[in-house]
């Protein structure tokens, strides 16, 4: 009998084959104490892909899952290798991770923190997953990240944009490649000032929950620094579907720019409603009325259809980027699935590669060793140019894309065009920035579990 806080069935799946042959009901104890949670000892290693498969973000989750499968294929030496060929670190050689074949389990987060934790726990306790990754909202990311910290496994965040994930809720075992609200604001503001002038009056509609708050704060701070004035900021319930009563009074307030701090279904509906009100055909203060959506995703742009045309926003990555890494990824993803990957697919693919590479460089699956390998790791060739995984808050720092809804799309995927690639210096902030939880925010100690 052994005593442990988290079990390691991954080990048993492989080592118990020997035991299966025993006809007699011999009770034999598990091996002596292991070094860390779910230490893989057989010829395989299990990763846990925890994505929304039901609920409003199911399509985004499905795209993440496709990218994960592609990453596993590439790590195991299948396919054309994708970004492994362009990645600046050459440790990975297509023989799995540390010579172990990569296997995976999937789960459904339902975009609910309880369900996401239950799913992640079953991966850790039942399937012996050594790393958990995925998710499509910040609530889920923060909840699962805290779980992984307790359990002693690595969490590689998927799509999560709130400052909190690597701000006030940052954890030593959690890592985020995706950008955040602060970066969106910092990247957007100069482009907006350039396009629309510096004396704009902005009206914010903000989703009434944590991500909305951090985004509103970030965009407000950056645009006000450029000389814009914030006329009003109104909170809208998450469950709202019809935004007419929030959009109708915008013109009366004297504002000439509407900022929609919404994501997902909220963003699709509020943007559709705003365009329907004909706001973009109006003139206020002698200027054309404008709408801004701080966080774009191609799937959401697809939902909003023609309404996105000409509207500025920011995004983590877009398939039309022309660097070698992006091209390689789009090629292998597109060849396999028949359409270009979304930003969610990109970030999850990259996160998987980064994790595998860190294990390879560390020479160990132990979370603390992996974390050390990831901290302050500089790399290139994964689609966003030179990138730094900052050790102080486990956030990636890289160029941010400012995009605009395309006026004449050539296909159903060709909805956004890149306006500017904001260099990383412009979006970098101090780890103890007030928007990031200030000096109290701490990673804590890394946890190996067991």
């Amino acid at each position: 009998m052994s005593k442990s806080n988290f079990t390691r069935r991954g080990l048993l799946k492989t080592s118990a084959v020997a035991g299966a042959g025993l006809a007699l009901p011999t009770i034999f104890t598990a091996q002596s104490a292991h070094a860390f949670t779910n230490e893989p000892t057989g010829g395989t290693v299990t990763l846990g892909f925890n994505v929304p498969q039901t609920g409003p973000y199911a399509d985004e989750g499905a795209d993440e899952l496709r990218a994960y499968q592609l990453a596993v294929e590439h790590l195991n030496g299948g396919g054309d290798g994708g970004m492994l060929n362009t990645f600046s670190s050459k440790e990975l050689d297509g023989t799995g991770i540390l010579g172990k074949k990569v296997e995976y389990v999937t789960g459904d987060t339902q975009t609910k923190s309880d369900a996401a934790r239950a799913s992640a726990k079953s991966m850790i306790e039942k399937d012996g997953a050594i790393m958990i990754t995925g998710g499509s909202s910040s609530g889920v990311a923060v909840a699962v990240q805290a779980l992984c910290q307790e359990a002693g496994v690595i969490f590689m965040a998927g799509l999560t944009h709130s400052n909190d994930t690597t701000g006030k809720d940052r954890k030593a075992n959690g890592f985020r490649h995706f950008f955040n609200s602060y970066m969106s604001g910092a990247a957007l503001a100069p482009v907006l000032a350039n396009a629309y002038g510096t004396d704009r009056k902005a009206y914010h509609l903000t989703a009434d929950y944590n991500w909305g708050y951090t985004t509103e704060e970030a965009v407000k701070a950056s645009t006000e620094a450029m000389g814009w004035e914030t006329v009003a900021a109104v909170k809208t319930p998450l469950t709202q579907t019809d935004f007419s009563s929030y959009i109708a009074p915008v013109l009366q307030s004297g504002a000439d720019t509407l900022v929609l701090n919404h994501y997902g279904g909220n963003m699709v509906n509020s943007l559709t409603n705003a365009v329907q009100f004909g706001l973009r055909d109006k003139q206020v203060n002698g200027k054309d009325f404008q709408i801004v959506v701080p966080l774009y995703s191609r799937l959401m742009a697809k939902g909003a259809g023609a309404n996105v045309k000409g509207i500025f926003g920011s995004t983590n990555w877009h398939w039309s980027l022309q660097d070698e890494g992006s091209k390689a990824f789009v090629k292998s993803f597109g060849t396999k699935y028949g359409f270009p990957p979304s930003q969610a697919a990109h970030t999850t693919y990259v996160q998987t590669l980064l994790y595998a590479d860190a294990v390879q460089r560390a020479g160990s699956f132990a979370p603390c060793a992996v974390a050390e390998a990831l901290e302050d790791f500089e790399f290139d060739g994964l689609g966003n140019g030179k990138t730094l995984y900052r050790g102080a808050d486990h956030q990636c720092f890289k160029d941010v894309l400012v995009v605009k809804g395309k006026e004449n799309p050539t296909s159903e995927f060709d909805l956004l065009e890149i306006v500017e690639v904001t260099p990383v210096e412009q979006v970098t902030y101090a780890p103890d920035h007030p928007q990031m939880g200030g000096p109290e925010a701490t990673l804590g100690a890394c946890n190996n579990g067991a």
Partner: protein
Amino acid sequence: MEAIILQILNGLDKGSAYALIALGLTLIFGTLGVVNFAHGALFMIGAFCAVTFSRILTLSHTVVDETKTDFLGNPLKVDVPYLHDLFGQATGDAIIDWAVPLSILFTVPVMMFVGYAMERGLIKHFYNRPHADQILVTFGLAIVLQEVIKYFYGANPIPTPAPQAFAGSFDFGAALGFDPNLIIYPYWRIIYFVFAAVIIGAVFAFLQYTTFGMVVRAGMADRETVGLLGINIDKRFTIMFGLAAAVAGLAGVMYTPINSPNYHMGMDFLVLSFVVVVVGGMGSLPGAVLAGFLLGILESFASMREVLEILPGLNQIIIYLVAIVILLTRPRGLMGRKGVMED
């Protein structure tokens, strides 16, 4: 003043959507005595009728355009709708542009059939079962229906714009003598309001002034006696169910340009529509309509910036707060009858 007029407009518009859904729900409850949790799903299916119809209109064959390339660098495949071949590009595009209003013609028969099939196939067997069983089985049906839609159409919202002719908004302010741009309202929403009013009026007129409606009303009041008079009330009730489904479906079709439809829009509306029905009083058609408009207007006022500054979060709870106040002061909602669904 402008702000208040604007929110009344908003409220009427929201209210017409609520009233339309609640009307169908009450129609089913009032005639058949069945609490139909799948009503939201009917609304959603109606919306997807519009999506399906516009997909049918844009059925295409692919033409390879050698001059352009797709994201992988291969020659671009361009979809050309058959309608372009049939009517030429301009006419074809005009028909596709009008997909949403045209799909009404498609939706009514489809929804009538869906309603008929639902009643004959499932609901019929639940007339004499407890309300809890009715709720559960229709709730299960709602889940099944929305999962089927999700399987075929995905989870992402699907844009279904209104015809170009209705883009933009009407300037009420200028018409009423205020400054321009202060009170504007989108054409499509005005159409939605008028459409809802017509449907509601038609349903009332149908029940009030036709023999069929008279028999159904008699059946609502006393099913047994009507049956004893030798009238096949069951058949009429089946037709009423089909009618209620069609009303829900039409509400869904016309709603698609306002919010891009997705598979869970029915569930989003379900709770709300029940609150509306109950506030109006179970089984009362005028009550449902009145409650729909009342809640719509109050919700719009609660979302005003000036109100939220005093009471932050009021917009989150207004509907429920109003429901509680009304149910505590008026035990059976606004116009409910005694003894209906009270045990």
